[in-house]
């Protein structure tokens, strides 16, 4: 059962992570992957994610362990960018492999919900040269709350 968690301060290519991760788990039934990119909303020129080293990576590792404990996985991969990014650049990659598909899909859903509103990142975006700090959306909190109700092992 493999866990791979990385925090990167430079652009990355999701395929170069997913290929080796998949190949490292022979016998798997399926692998589910989510890649989030900086959305080119309206007039957003750039997005900046800041983190606090002593908490952020440790928090991501704890999240990966929680997913491994909660779902029947063979492995999980979490990669997250920090720093300044342009629209179209990948921010986050979560990949989970399992013998059965729903464990992999659910683990990705679970990890993404937690990364989006319960991880140690601070985000701001630049429009018209002005930086504005971002808060999680209401939906993000609602998505996260789903996991408190159903502690089922898939």
């Amino acid at each position, binding site marked *: 059962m493999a866990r791979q968690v990385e925090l990167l301060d430079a652009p990355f290519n999701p395929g170069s992570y997913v290929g080796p991760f998949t190949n490292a788990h022979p016998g798997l039934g399926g692998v589910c992957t989510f890649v*989030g990119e900086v959305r080119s909303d309206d007039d957003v020129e750039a997005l900046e*994610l*800041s983190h*606090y080293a*002593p*908490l952020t990576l*440790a928090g991501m590792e704890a999240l990966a362990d929680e997913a491994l404990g909660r779902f029947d996985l063979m492995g999980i991969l979490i990669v*997250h960018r920090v720093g300044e990014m342009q629209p179209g650049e990948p*921010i*986050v990659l979560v990949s989970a492999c399992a013998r059965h598909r729903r464990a992999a899909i659910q683990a990705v859903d679970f990890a993404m919900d937690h*990364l*989006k*509103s*319960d*991880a*140690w*990142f*601070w*985000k*701001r975006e630049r429009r018209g040269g002005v930086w504005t*700090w*971002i*808060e*999680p959306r209401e939906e*993000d909190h609602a998505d996260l709350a789903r996991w408190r109700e159903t502690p089922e092992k898939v």
Partner: protein
Amino acid sequence: MSVKLVFLGKLADLAGLPEMTVEAPLDWVSLVEGLEAGLAEAIEGDKVRLALNGTVLADKRTLDAGEGDEVALLPPVSGG
């Protein structure tokens, strides 16, 4: 001058800098009193938390930092 304060997110904007050092020992009252008014008010908000040497305090009012410690001031996260 030996406790390091680290300001995250919008608190770094308010502080005008990402880090500063203050005298040890440092408790909650001396932390708040040592910061300029706008920043002090911001960190008193319910949603701002403190971490001492990488561990988040359950109650920030129990802060007790000494020589060489690092105190992070954490506004609400915005997620990845």
